């Protein structure tokens, strides 16, 4: 029984990552290329996984995709050419960092729009503050009503 399980483990391991080992020889990439390779591997999505980049996936296809990235870097292509290649091959959803385009403009603009809107609202309110005379009152004190109610409650609770 144990032997059977052990062999299942071995089999599982072989199937899952035999391709992983092939991508080990990164020696052909110089340090700069290697950094580009690592960055791109973080940006390209493994197509069979759930929102996982090929860099961390142990699926066979991820290993193949890593090799493709390497090949293209060695061919001397730029990062953008490689991204385009993957987008053409697998569809744009393969890019975890979506390219700026008609369908993603809202995504990339979101932080700026939100910041501008929030900033505008605050400036408007601040402008209102400025126009009021210099009557910044001392501290806000709980109103008398509050104090009365609280005192009443305290009595109630103590009863």
């Amino acid at each position, binding site marked *: 029984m144990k032997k059977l*399980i*052990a062999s*299942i*483990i*071995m089999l*599982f*391991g*072989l199937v899952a*990552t*035999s391709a*992983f*080992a092939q991508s*080990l020889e990164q020696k052909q990439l110089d340090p700069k290329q290697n950094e580009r390779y690592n960055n791109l591997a973080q*940006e390209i*999505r493994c197509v069979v*996984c*759930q*929102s*996982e*980049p090929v860099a*961390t996936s*142990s699926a066979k296809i991820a290993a193949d995709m890593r090799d493709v990235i390497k090949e293209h870097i060695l061919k001397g292509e730029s990062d953008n050419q490689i991204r385009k290649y993957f987008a053409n091959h697998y*569809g*744009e*959803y*393969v*890019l*975890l*960092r*979506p390219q700026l385009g008609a*369908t*993603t403009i*809202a*995504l990339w603009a*979101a*932080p700026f729009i*939100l*910041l501008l809107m*929030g*900033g505008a609202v*605050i400036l408007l309110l*601040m402008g209102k*503050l*400025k126009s009021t005379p210099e*009557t*910044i*009152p*001392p*501290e*806000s*004190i*709980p109103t008398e009503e*509050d*104090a009365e*109610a*609280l005192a009443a*409650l*305290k009595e*109630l*609770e103590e009863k």
Partner: protein
Amino acid sequence: MIVEIGHFALILAMFAALAQSCAGLIGGQRADYRFYTFTKRATDITFVGAAIALIALIHAYLTSDFSVKNVVENSHSLKPLIYKIAGSWGNHEGSMLLWALVGAGFATFLSHSKEELAWTLKSRALGVQGLIVALVIAYVVFASNPFVRLPNPPFQGNDLNPLLQDPALAAHPPFLYLGYVGMSLVYSLAIAGLLDGKVDAVWARIIRPWALASWMFLTIGILLGAYWAYYELGWGGWWFWDPVENASFMPWLLGTALLHSAIVTEKRGALAAWTVLLAILAFSLSLLGTFLVRSGVLTSVHAFALDPKRGVWILLILALFTGGGLLLYGLRASVMNSDKGMFAPVSRETALVLNNLFLVVATLTILVGTLYPLLGEAIYGRAISVGAPYFNAVFTPLMSIILVFLPLASFFSWKRSKITTHAKKLIPALIIAIIGGLVVAFIAKNKPMSAVGVTLGVWLILGALSEFLQKAGLGKSNDVVKRAFALRPMYWGMFIAHLGVGVFVIGAVVETSFQKEQTFAIGIGETVQFEGRKITLDKIASLEGPNFYSDAAQISVNDGKKTIILNPARRYYPAAKMPTTEVDRKANLFGELYMALGEPNSESGASKWVLRVYFNPFIGWIFGGYFLIALGGFLSMADRGLRVAAPKASGDIAKAAS
């Protein structure tokens, strides 16, 4: 039998929570003390009922009762004791039961708290909380019942997902839920305040400890999750911007904003409307998180239980509380008198408003990024992925901007302040920070961003220290240390939390910029070189655990001076049919050597093992910084001055005014 008792107790708790809800709301509305007394009793019954239910479920796990479907799906008779207990909430059904119990527990806590707060407010808050708990229990009973029996019980269970069989992850859901669900009580108090028609400084003081507590628990929950991801997933990373991570991070960010705006409402009576809105949104995002995680609309590496039908339920609960809350907010806008506390453009108020602006924009940006794949599908009919590279690109600059201003802003006084007087006090901090950045720039010439990041981190740490020492009377008194220790826990909390932010920034920047990683295929007895170290695979031992088999490597690492041994392993869980990676790590002052053992592979003849080796510099600073942030929250919470309500408050203010 015990399972049925638990099931029955849960249904009882559902009705008790409904009664609690009705009585609480009526009691508050009619100012009838009898209803208030009733809702307090009902709250106790809800809590006890939910507790019996969870205990019954845990009992089923402990006794490996495989006639219960939930136990079959998530347990195994050989599973270690701690994971039998934790397994009861490590699955979807059990986790929602835990949610309900924690919600009821917070209500009970509020009901029995000795705080001198208006009982109509308390009555209404218990009413709202009762409704939340009742609906969550109804969801558990009708849509995700953990007590369902099987007609033909199997002899053995399928085991809990092995990735979850881990101490940090056993504690992760309870802490996360204490945070999420704590937000529900803050929400209940906000709604109660709106109904009561009093949202003011007193109200802000009442919600503050609850907001602090849930925020602190959420911080710890996220920390445990990140730490688990770091050592269990075996990729040396600690944050992946996964939808589920974002789901916990968004309420945390809004909670952070809420804590800061509640200070303004409490101390100055201003921003009340804004604070209420944040309280409503923080809970809504907690619910949205639950929905995203549980419905499966967003695929995620962490999505353990997916069922679209359940999603509809949660979506309805979400719509009710978000929509209802916002509607009430609109209707009762008049009770939130915002212009009580005026302030000048340069003041602590303005600084906190800007803090809130950036935190909220960051939260909404993460929300947009998380939901964009859904929008893209719906609007453009195209599949779009939004991953870590996007979030890093937008979140980091947003946060950096507010962090640059943090040290200066923390010096500002209320109402009106001057930049120049305070800037002077920070000159030493600024000089040291720039020197630190230059040193890093000199060491790592090709990584300019790391120098900027380190400058920011040092600036934050020294800024927090300067502000704290100033408060302790630096330059005015010879007894700064003694006086520092006499400062109120609240100030210690602020200091430690802001210090933690700086520590975290340095850790995150250094780790991301200088992490070293290499993958080797290594045979037994072979040696490879990694960053000036000789790494030798001595042997691989086959071991047997309670519910797994493992291949444990013995690897000696020689850095020229001494040899250390690491034992990374691979496990296989036959019941769950899943392998896991058990990394081994060795930390020194500057970072951590991290090894993950991959699969064996004998393609090229001799059998080789895949070994991934990382050096993660300053990784301890990341988790340490985050821990300091949580500790800061704890210290603030420990401040008695915060817990004693109104009468004390007016006393304080009178003193401050004189």
